[in-house]
């Protein structure tokens, strides 16, 4: 893995430096930026996007993509909210999130992997289907003013930090260990590099892909528990734009959208940088409407720095994207 570490090391340094520069700049302009409360606010705002980003990193790692993740989080959030309303207690409700997410992940995985539909098209279709499901599950009304059980558990301070932060850190560690220290991680990278080669090497490509989408579902579900704890509300439009934001953050972090190269630390830094910029710009008085523009420019600038290094070879890419079913027949 030496080379990959070296490659993403560069990007991580870049992002880390960008975070620090942003921190310095904003704290120069606004005296309120480098305060404990504000830093905590920024960190807390990272939670959902980061958890979804973790799963998205793995999905992009296998060379897939999932544009339905935000709505998956929404569906899981409904499950969590309904359980809270039914007085199921914080533990059960909280765990219902990842569980529901995992189940939805199974559905996504089945459609994408078993249906052999290109991931971007399949998840675009599922995005619509899940949205309709959110609407049906909500029945036209919001879940609003949900009980604070989960909020008080995840928000309880330990040494001045809300419990939520260590929980997110543990989720990160689990995914990190699985990716970095188990065969599955290698299989993800091999699959993302080339399905055909991975299969020839004896990797059960389908199973790896399937697992990746389920992991992503579980991550979305965990994000749902955090979402409910933080916002105690589910509206019909929940998560509609989260997927694109997550993809942007993960790509910023140095994970290749073509698969085979991923950085979990980069994802963390990408999310952090986005949130720092959003928070900082508001603090220095830039209207929130400009935030998407900054996100977009950041994406183009950071990835543009790789211009000319031949990262993107369109020819091999086209080959790479073709479905395995057809490739087999050609030999």
């Amino acid at each position, binding site marked *: 893995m030496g*080379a*990959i570490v070296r490659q993403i090391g560069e990007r991580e340094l870049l992002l880390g430096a960008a975070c620090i520069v942003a921190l310095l700049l904003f704290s120069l302009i606004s005296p309120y930026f480098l305060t404990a409360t504000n830093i905590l606010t920024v960190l807390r705002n990272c939670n959902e996007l980061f958890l979804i980003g973790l799963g998205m990193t793995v999905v992009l790692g296998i060379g897939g993509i999932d544009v339905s993740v935000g709505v998956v989080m929404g569906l899981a959030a409904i499950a969590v909210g309904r359980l809270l309303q039914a007085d199921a207690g914080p533990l059960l409700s909280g765990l219902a999130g990842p569980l529901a997410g995992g189940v939805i992940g199974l559905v996504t995985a089945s459609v994408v992997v078993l249906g052999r539909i290109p991931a971007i098209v399949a998840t675009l279709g599922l995005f619509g289907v899940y949205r309709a499901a959110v609407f049906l599950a909500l029945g036209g009304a919001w879940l609003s003013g949900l009980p604070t059980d989960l909020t008080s558990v995840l928000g309880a301070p330990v040494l001045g930090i809300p419990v939520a932060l260590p929980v997110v850190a543990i989720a990160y560690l689990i995914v990190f260990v699985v990716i970095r220290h*188990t*065969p599955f991680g*290698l*299989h993800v990278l091999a699959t993302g590099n080339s399905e055909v080669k991975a299969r020839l*090497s004896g*990797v059960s490509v389908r199973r790896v892909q399937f697992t990746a989408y389920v992991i992503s579902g579980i991550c979305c579900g965990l994000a749902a528990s955090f979402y409910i704890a933080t916002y105690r509300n589910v509206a019909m439009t929940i998560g509609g734009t989260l997927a694109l934001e997550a993809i942007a953050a993960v790509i910023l972090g140095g994970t290749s959208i073509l698969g*085979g190269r991923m950085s979990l630390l980069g994802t963390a830094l990408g999310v952090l940088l986005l949130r720092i910029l959003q928070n900082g710009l508001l603090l220095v008085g830039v209207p929130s409407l400009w935030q998407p523009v900054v996100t977009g420019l950041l994406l183009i600038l950071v990835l543009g720095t790789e211009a000319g290094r031949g990262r993107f070879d369109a020819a091999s890419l086209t080959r790479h994207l073709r479905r395995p079913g057809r490739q087999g027949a050609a030999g």
Partner: protein
Amino acid sequence: MTPPLIEARQISKRFGALTALNAVDLTIRSGEVLALLGDNGAGKSTFIKVLSGAHPASDGEILVDGRPVHFASPQDAAEAGIATIFQELALSENLSIAENVFLGREMTRNVLGVPFLKRRAMKRQVTGLLDELDAHISDPEAPVGSLSGGQRQAVAICRALNLDARLVIMDEPTAALAVAETRKVLQLVRRLADSGRAVILISHNMHDVFEVADRIAVFRRGRKIAERERRATDPEEIVSFITGAHPDVRALEMQS
């Protein structure tokens, strides 16, 4: 006499209306290098894909040590001791040498049900294999993407050795290599056979074939049309088989 290591009987493979392989018989013994020759589309690649479990045969059977086997996947073939080094090498450029050598059958240690990679042990073993092959690769952690073509062949051979393969199938191992690298790879091939393994070599390069092979089989239009001991033939005869100019081939093709 012991049965041959591998015996393929009447293997056919059809893709829809296209017959890629037509009733091919072939045997391979331990310790020998068998070269498969033939024009593009002659069926060599299809044949080794059948042999390595990548494609199921439409007809015919494969015997290992005299016993019929059925390969549903490359893993099945690997378990029977058949390792294939494909033309595209099947190496993941984004993984290290050690990771590639062990890909799909990593060494792990179970902790609480989680299979942790034994990176150090894998690295040690790969270092040993690379030394054994005299491959001149110092760092098993180097990404395969940074290696030369010959070095990649060495990694692929390492992988085959690591599988305890008794038959190593190599598809055009020297196709894209410089002269010096080609020599190196041919030496590796010879060393494999000398260590008691069987090697099937697909090549277009007559010079390479005559340098390293013990036996030569020629494919044409999905059939095996000739088989010769290297000592009993010469490049001109083989070329005439390949191009179809040889009288035997003409006679055969008149019939059908």
